[in-house]
């Protein structure tokens, strides 16, 4: 089934149920809570003493009416679900992806494909059981995403592939060649006479077939096997993941809190128990969430960008096309240094992320070794690879200074007593690398083609030391690319060169249609 033929298609039939899933569970919980006396009576033969609504109905002989009311409510719910499914449709043309939805308040959202910042497939637990997945097409800006919730799992994968291919600048000719031929006996896309057909992606042929398909979908880490390379370039052992979560500033805080609790209890004080114990209990779920969210992490390069996957029960799979990463930050907190672990974060233009789970979409590698860092950077910066690049990155990560990075002069020690030697920058084939921090190490990498503006600043203290600072501004995110101390003349030169290079590389950048470059 071709979903990118420019016609309007509908979502998975279970979509309203899945989207309203939480409300549904809440209503069920409310009903059960109200009728628990009766349930207790049914299951344990304990006589009931309260009058719950059912007794009342029974006593007044209104059973028939009550059943009728329940039936009416059910019919209304089903009708609303059906209508909202009917009214919710999407289409993908050569340039656009569009969604229209809503019963009373219609919304119509449209995104240009060459402005796509990323495509994310989310499979939460309940939709996964139904064989459904949510597809998010992110465009720049706050809440600037087009959400297709929900699609059949296979349909979501196919649609992602096709959207990325269309966005990459490939047109229908290649599209047709890549798509698998229509199933024998199935209708071809041209013979689909109805202007709207259903994107279930699960032909209801044989029950066992469906079950097998579900099981396969549930177990497969990445369904799109024909496009994604089978191997993730980084593998995170569970022990390392747990260690990285435990070795954080939060743990230090917890230890201090725990000591406070013990000291307090030893001195017969009661208040620390009430103040600290809830924090300790809450932290268990904090650690649990941090770890489970990042289980089964994978990152792989595809022709259409870097694909980052997370999650054990609820999985999340994001594709960042080339040229959509505005800045890359590699950092190492002090506690991670004995283990040689690093974290990689990126700035991207889309901050849509209304998936309700507060996932951290900016971390592309939660924890990894230095070799993993260079592999991931190789994926994200395809033009910046080779032995030279590896050495430059290595120096950016661990060097203490005095190498081919332009460092700060000795007088900068007044402002950066430890890290002045390390604070420096280096330009290399299309990217600018800025490193700082000796206690916790940071390296920021900015592709010149994504630089929004460059600024140079100097305060009175810096002026007295003949120093200046340079900031390279990108879209907002966790990575801040700045050189806080540098020789004033060097900073002026960097400002001029970075500004000129930003213009040059932006002019020759063709990544909005990455396959035609």
């Amino acid at each position: 089934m071709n979903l990118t033929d420019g016609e309007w298609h509908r979502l998975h039939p279970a979509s309203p149920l899945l989207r309203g899933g939480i409300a549904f569970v809440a209503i069920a919980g409310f009903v059960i809570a109200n009728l628990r006396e009766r349930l207790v009576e049914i299951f344990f033969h304990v006589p009931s003493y309260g009058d719950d609504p059912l007794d009342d109905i029974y006593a007044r002989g209104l059973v028939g009416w009550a059943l009728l009311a329940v039936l009416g409510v059910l019919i209304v719910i089903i009708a609303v679900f059906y209508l909202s499914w009917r009214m919710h449709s999407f289409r993908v043309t050569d340039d656009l992806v569009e969604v229209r939805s809503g019963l009373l308040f219609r919304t119509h959202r449209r995104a240009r494909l060459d402005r796509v910042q990323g495509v994310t497939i989310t499979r939460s637990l309940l939709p996964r059981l139904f064989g459904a997945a949510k597809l998010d097409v992110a465009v720049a800006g706050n809440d600037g995403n087009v959400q297709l919730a929900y699609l059949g799992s296979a349909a979501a994968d196919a649609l992602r592939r096709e959207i990325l291919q269309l966005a990459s600048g490939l047109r229908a000719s290649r599209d047709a060649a890549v798509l698998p031929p229509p199933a024998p006996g199935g209708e071809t896309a041209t013979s689909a006479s109805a202007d709207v057909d259903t994107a279930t992606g699960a032909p209801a042929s044989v029950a066992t077939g469906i079950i097998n398909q579900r099981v396969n979908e549930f177990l497969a880490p990445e369904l799109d096997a024909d496009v994604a390379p089978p191997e993730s370039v980084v593998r995170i052992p569970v022990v390392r993941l747990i260690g990285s979560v435990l070795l954080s500033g939060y743990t230090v805080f917890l230890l201090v809190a725990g000591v406070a609790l013990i000291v307090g209890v030893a001195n017969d004080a009661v208040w620390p128990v009430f103040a600290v114990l809830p924090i300790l209990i809450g932290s268990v779920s904090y650690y649990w969430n941090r770890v489970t969210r990042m289980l089964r992490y994978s990152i792989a390069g595809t022709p259409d960008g870097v694909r980052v996957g997370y999650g054990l029960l609820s999985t999340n799979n994001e594709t960042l096309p080339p040229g959509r990463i505005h800045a890359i930050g590699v950092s190492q907190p002090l506690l991670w240094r004995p283990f040689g672990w690093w974290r990689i974060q990126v700035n991207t233009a889309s901050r849509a992320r209304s998936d309700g789970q507060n996932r951290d979409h900016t971390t592309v590698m939660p924890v990894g070794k230095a070799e993993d860092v260079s592999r991931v950077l190789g994926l994200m910066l395809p033009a910046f690879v080779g032995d030279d690049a590896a050495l430059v990155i290595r120096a950016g990560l661990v060097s203490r200074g005095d190498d081919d990075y332009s460092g700060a002069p000795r007088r900068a020690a007044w402002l950066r007593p430890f890290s002045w030697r390390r604070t420096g920058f280096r330009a290399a084939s299309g990217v600018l690398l800025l490193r700082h921090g000796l206690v916790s190490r940071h390296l920021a990498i900015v592709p010149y083609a994504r630089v929004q503006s460059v600024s140079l600043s100097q305060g009175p203290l810096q002026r007295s030391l003949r120093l200046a600072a340079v900031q390279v501004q990108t879209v907002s995110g966790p990575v801040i690319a700045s050189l806080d101390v540098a020789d004033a003349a060097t900073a002026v030169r960097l400002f001029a060169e970075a500004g000129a290079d930003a213009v040059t590389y932006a002019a020759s950048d063709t990544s909005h249609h990455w396959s035609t470059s």
Partner: protein
Amino acid sequence: MPETDHDDDVAMTSAGPEDHAPDSAAPAESTDPRIDLPGIAWKRVSPKYLVAGLVQLGIAAVIVCGLVAVAWLAWDWTWAGWALPFVAVFFIISIVVEPRRVRSIGYALRTDDLVFRRGIMFQRFVAVPYGRMQLVDITRGPVSRALGLADLRFVTAAAATAVAIPGLPEADAEELRDQLVTLAESRRAGL
């Protein structure tokens, strides 16, 4: 506004010698502690913007000093009595420095980008490539409007860019906006 003219004169004379200092020390460039970008002909903002700045500062000074004085005299808050001289000195310094602050604001249109500078103590230079400008905004405050001035603000995809040229004559501002929009359109390059 005789007051502001007077302030202006005082400030000009006080700032005069300092302005000449870099010129006399021009050959030995490294002794000039101030950073500067070579080879840029800076365009300055309208002199009338100084009036707007002084009026705004004056209003703020009267309000803040008035509130502190009321707190001190009417409500007997002794700390307000201590704070009053500091507040007054702060505003006097601001007013004295204002002409230099206004003269430190400058911009230049280069072939591929717009460069903006401001600040005396805290100098800041920003270069924004034309292709990165997402929108150009013209705003007018009440004081600026009375003087026929407008502020031009640029928005890029990065929130930190924060470039705003204050105090342009309205006609210039609109012309500059149209010019920048045209330039941005001709060099548009995604994000």
